[in-house]
């Protein structure tokens, strides 16, 4: 085929330009570390990257939700533990008070301490998380949920608690409402109100034991109060166990989420990130081809019959 001088020149030149474009692309990939930057370079890969990034953003949010959940459940658990301690101390003092050898004065002292413990229990029921939220207020947690009026305790919090999303379609209650914890003890051994149960122990301690008949009646009073306290302690530990179960669930979900995230990260990296070994050798290959094209251009262009016409 006859080849014209312009096409010889243009074809050699366009080879050089093509190799230059390939070198520029390989260089861009090596310096950015990703295989593609826009959907136009790899539509399928971009679709995958966008979906993976969404999943990872979601997981990051679930992870932060789990953190908040752990902190709040932890707060509730320590409040429940303190309440349990208070009740154990109440029980201990009640057993101690139920002794014939104690003087009225001694029993008065115990009653005073028990009253203090009851106040302490109320304080625990009104525990705040330090950020202005009352742990046992349900969804009305910006003011103290429990108040004492005329010796009886009233609850002004909400019976609802927030659920926190920890995964797609999965959520956990972030607490227990105050009425559930302190006012709804379902065993029949006393009032459903925990504070009333403590009060019954105080009442037993302050009862009149001057006559044998009164003493016998007081024994029954003590027995009831102790049974009610045991019921209360059991009720609290039941709730504590359910909090513990949720905390365990938080750990399980978190572990699973982290495992999943590692997988997502690996997939994302596989789809988007550059194989440096492969790219650098490609860069070298294109550089070499460019050099070859340049040198061929110079050689071919120097050939001319005019060089020989003198």
């Amino acid at each position, binding site marked *: 085929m006859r080849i014209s001088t312009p096409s010889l020149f243009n074809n050699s030149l366009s080879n050089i330009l093509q190799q230059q474009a390939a070198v520029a692309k390989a260089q861009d990939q090596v310096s950015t570390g990703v295989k593609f930057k826009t959907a136009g370079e790899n539509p399928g890969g971009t679709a995958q990257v966008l979906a993976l990034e969404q999943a990872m953003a*979601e997981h990051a949010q679930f992870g932060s939700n789990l953190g908040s959940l752990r902190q709040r459940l932890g707060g509730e658990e320590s409040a429940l533990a303190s309440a349990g301690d208070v009740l154990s101390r109440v029980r201990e003092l009640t057993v101690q008070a139920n002794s014939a050898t104690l003087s009225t004065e001694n029993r008065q002292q115990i009653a005073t301490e028990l009253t203090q413990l009851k106040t302490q229990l109320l304080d625990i029921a009104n525990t705040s998380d330090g950020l202005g939220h009352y742990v046992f207020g349900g969804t009305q947690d*910006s003011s103290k949920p429990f108040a004492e009026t005329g010796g009886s305790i009233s609850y002004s919090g909400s019976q609802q608690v927030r659920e926190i999303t920890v995964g797609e379609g999965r959520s956990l209650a972030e607490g227990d409402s105050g009425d559930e914890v302190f006012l709804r003890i379902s065993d029949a051994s006393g009032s459903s109100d925990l504070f009333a149960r403590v009060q019954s122990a105080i009442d037993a301690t302050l009862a009149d034991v001057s006559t044998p008949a009164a003493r016998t009646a007081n024994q029954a009073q003590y027995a009831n109060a102790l049974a009610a306290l045991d019921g209360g302690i059991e009720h609290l530990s039941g709730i504590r166990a359910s909090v513990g179960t949720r905390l365990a669930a938080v750990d399980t979900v978190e572990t699973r989420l982290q495992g999943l995230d590692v997988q997502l990260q690996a997939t994302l990296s596989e789809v988007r990130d550059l194989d440096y070994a492969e790219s650098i050798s490609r860069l070298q290959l294109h550089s070499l081809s460019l050099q070859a094209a340049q040198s061929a251009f110079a050689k071919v262009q120097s050939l001319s019959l005019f060089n020989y016409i003198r």
Partner: protein
Amino acid sequence: MADLLNIGKSALYAAQKSLDLTGHNIANVGTEGYSRQRIDQSALPGGSVSRLDVGAGVVVNGTTRLSDALVESRLVRDGAEVARLTAFDSLATRADTLLSDSSTGLSGSLNQLFSGFEQLAVDPSSTATRQAVLGQAESFANRLGDLHAQLSSIDSEIDQRLSQAVSTINDLASAIGQLNHRIAEAGSNTPADLLDARSQLVQQLSEQVGISTTVQDDGSLNVFASSGQPLVVGDRVSLLGTADDLYRPGRLDIVGGSARISSQLSGGTVGGLLDARRNLIDPALEKLGRVAVTLTSRINAVQAEGVLQDGSVGSALFSAPSGVAFSASTNTGSATAAVSFGNTAQLTGDDYLLRSTGTGWQLTRARSGEAVSFTGTGSSSDPLVVEGVRITLSGSAASGDSFRISPTHDAASQVQLLSSDPRSLATAGRLGSSAALANTGSAKPGAPTVVDGSNAQLATPATITFLSASSYQIGSGPAVAFAAGDRISANGWSLTLAGVPQAGDQFSVSATPPGSSDNRNARALAGIAQEKLLDGSRNTISQANNALVTQTGTTTLQVRTAKAAAEAVRTQSQNERDAVSGVNLDEEAANLLRYQQAYQAAAQVIATASTVFDTLLAATRR
């Protein structure tokens, strides 16, 4: 002797012409579109009819332009295709980068918005969190507006480039007309360089717009645009012009004669610009607008299902985009159309053309022209409903009047955050439930769900009293039978009980009081991320946005691949053309030597004739 002298003279003349032409070829080695030329010469027979007759030398008939009309026309076609794809590719690449890049695309701000709602569910009463969520909502609205503005600026650049192309087309057509005139006048004596010049102009014209050509008997070339519109006939030139689009003011239509021909033009830069608008920019704007409409209307709807911290019902967070109906500038009736949205899950994003038949309406899809079925009459009580779009007409339309219904094309530019008050986020559910402390059963009420938000009694406190474990009454209403798992419904709400109720147990339902840190509605806002709101409930908002990004990318890739292929084809045709018409310097160098030698030889012939004559004179002098 006189013959030999004449023969030598003709040879000298022919060799000199050949040398001149070789020089001309060498001079034009770099001239775009130049076809190499050859001297067309033949032997001159002698005067007599005799076996002894010797020819009279050589005669130069003229110059021949070496070209192949078929290859030339293929090159014109290939050049037009490359120009089309180059114009398309440059616009597609910009749209692709815009939508893909994490700093300009929608994906990142969508993720952030949903993370914000999730954060709001964790900390509904924190003002800082609320403020942050509003910030995310605002940057989402801004991102939508920015994307719309950027895509629209590509769209208006298309108009600018179209009007540039129209003026270039007119210039080229005029120049071709003038050349036609000169070529027709010169007839068979037309210099080759004029033909080259015209080919070159035709090539340039085809890079602007797709054309077809025919050669007339007088040698002039007729040029027609791809729409069939004549551009050049002989030396008469029909100019193209621009006019406002029939429907969309500010957008250009190309006009030839009195007809709007934009929709029929293809090929060349003009074709590429129109293809990019039709297949990439418009669909991207429409799909972006669809995401904007669907997401904002859903967020607004969920806001209205919740209550604010002061206990009042939530209101719209974003301004709701509305569709646009453009009246044709040729309409004679007084009818106007308004566009709103119905079931957004059915939205396609497509534009429609609505045409009055005099007695009713006809609806077609604007891009494909296919007929679309609809329901309704168009009155305000019975709007035309098509694929989630509601069209209301007022005034009276004349037969043939038409509208372009553009539901979502510009919706992304209309989204605005309506409130900067952090309290305006409706995080709490509307109703709460509680169980009386004196209840003896183990039943606990679930959160009431709102079934009918418009029920006037919705927020009225209600008490559910169990008459026995298997029946209850609401307030002092009639007894209703109850079995475990039954939903208890009244006043537009409904709830379920977990556990077993006992006779005398009471549950109450009431409006969420002020100051609630309930997060049910915040979770509902966050849950929008997972709701399949689009494409007939098949895709989530994010999936729809990803589809937009991927679709644009796919189109861009297709165009880029096609462009590379078209360039290869054009290179091939160019090589073929150059093989025939291109100048080869080595060849010309050889010719230069050859004609130089021919010239020297011809000179020698004259010298010989002179010597022979001298010899004769010397002989007769004796």
